[in-house]
């Protein structure tokens, strides 16, 4: 019979071990990419067109493509997502319809990204005839990002103290005035954080852009939103699986640039969050 103290000791050791098994590979992965990829990164790598079947030159069009797509995603997901969050937090009553909306949001969040790709292909590329384009890709990524934006924005809106709303309404504010002047300004940091986290995910996605926007090799910058473009995640996929004789250094360099880009969203979100938490006046 093991004593209770001993069994606690064993259990906690195992828990600690598990946490380290989870966390150590994360550090290793990031560290490995940084070490292997840092050598490839140079001014030319970031600002030049790819050459020699992507084996030389830079990754500028992929970087620009990803940045453009991220903006496009924000333009699609932000208004709809914030609007939906306002509706759910401020207007919706607890009815079957509201439950249905919540069910739909959770399911949107769970739909595989490749299925979003199929949908984007079916609706935007083919049915609406946008072709393989930044427009189609942004719409697809925007939809994919929507659930994240909605749920974080709703959380931010709900965290604004209820008393501010009651006071505003008792002072003759209409519902919208109250939202506009008392709710949104205070929820804004949280909402922005949510949008950024959504964009973080969108920027790193490959499957949804495969059939909607991504170009295998297009060494120029896009001209319009109806243009195709290269994008970093797809570019990494291409150079690590489709191009024989690809220098490993270029692969790691591309992976590192993508990782930095995506994780910088994370850092920005964290900074915004903690900055505004300090400024908060209640």
């Amino acid at each position, binding site marked *: 019979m093991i004593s209770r103290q001993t069994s606690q000791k064993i259990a906690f050791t195992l828990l600690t071990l598990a946490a380290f098994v989870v966390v150590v590979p994360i550090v290793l992965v990031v560290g490995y990419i940084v070490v292997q990829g840092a050598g490839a990164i140079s001014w030319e790598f970031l600002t030049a067109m790819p050459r020699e079947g992507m084996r030389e030159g830079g990754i500028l069009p992929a970087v620009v493509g990803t940045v453009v797509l991220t903006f496009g995603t924000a333009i699609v997901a932000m208004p709809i997502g914030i609007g939906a969050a306002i509706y759910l937090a401020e207007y919706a009553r607890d009815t079957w319809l509201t439950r249905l909306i919540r069910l739909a949001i959770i399911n949107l969040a769970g739909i595989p990204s490749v299925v979003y790709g199929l949908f984007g292909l079916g609706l935007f590329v083919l049915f609406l005839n946008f072709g393989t384009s930044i427009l189609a890709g942004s719409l697809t990524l925007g939809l994919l990002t929507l659930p994240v934006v909605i749920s974080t924005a709703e959380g931010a809106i709900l965290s604004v103290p209820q008393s501010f709303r009651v006071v*505003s309404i008792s002072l003759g*504010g209409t519902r919208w005035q109250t939202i506009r*002047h008392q709710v949104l300004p205070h929820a804004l940091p949280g909402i922005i954080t949510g949008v950024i986290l959504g964009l973080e995910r969108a920027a790193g996605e490959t499957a949804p852009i495969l059939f909607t926007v991504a170009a295998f090799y297009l060494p120029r910058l896009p001209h319009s939103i109806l243009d195709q473009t290269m994008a970093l995640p797809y570019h990494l996929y291409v150079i690590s699986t489709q191009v024989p004789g690809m220098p490993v250094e270029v692969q790691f360099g591309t992976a590192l640039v993508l990782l930095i880009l995506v994780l910088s969203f994370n850092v920005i979100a964290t900074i915004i969050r903690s900055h505004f938490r300090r400024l908060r006046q209640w």
Partner: protein
Amino acid sequence: MTEQAKFLIENLTFYYDSGPPALRNINLTIYPHEILVIFGPALSGKSTLLRLLNRLNDLVYDTRMEGRILLDGEDIYAPGVNVTELRRQVGMVFALPIPLPTTIRGNVTYGPRLAGERNRARLDELTEQSLRAAALWDEVKDRLDEPANALSGGQQQRLCLARVLALQPEVILLDNPTSGLDPLSTAKVEASLQTLKRDYTIVMVPHSVQQAARIADRAAFLLSGELIEHNIAAELFTRPQDKRTEDYITGRFG
């Protein structure tokens, strides 16, 4: 008491979504330029009655109301009534001071700005007037653009009063406004109410029977949603007509 009624409450019964009515068959007249105190034990329906007077209970879903409430002879629950305008006419101060997270000036001018007042000079004038009337001007006149929650609790509650006064209301509802205040701040608020009743009609839920007796012109005693009796304060607190009123008053007086 020959004056015309400000508020006329007729056969008012009110239900929240479930359970017994929160208010039962209330008949009450509120006269202009008086302080009416509505008192009674916890959960007797005081706040409910107050919130019905500026339709703040509209924010609660699944309620049902019978009877009528007339303000200056007009049914405030009639279809087509401009509710936001009603809330400006009938302002409300809550139990705890709730400054909006902005400056002192921003708090006072919030209502007028929502109503569309853009004129800077007019807003400044309103700010000064309202803060003076709430006996706060001298304490804050040099720091109008500082955050409101830097004020003390008592100052905050007077700011909330000033914020309501800036709406230029006709009626002021106060739901236990001194509950969180120290005796000194309480005295200040009570004193300003005495001055304010010259220009406004005041309906207040008091913190205690003592406070009710101190400031009321007329008083109404609520018990479990029923209006047991109402009368001129001097009468009601010295010669209550109903046994239950007497028990409540004397119970509190010891």
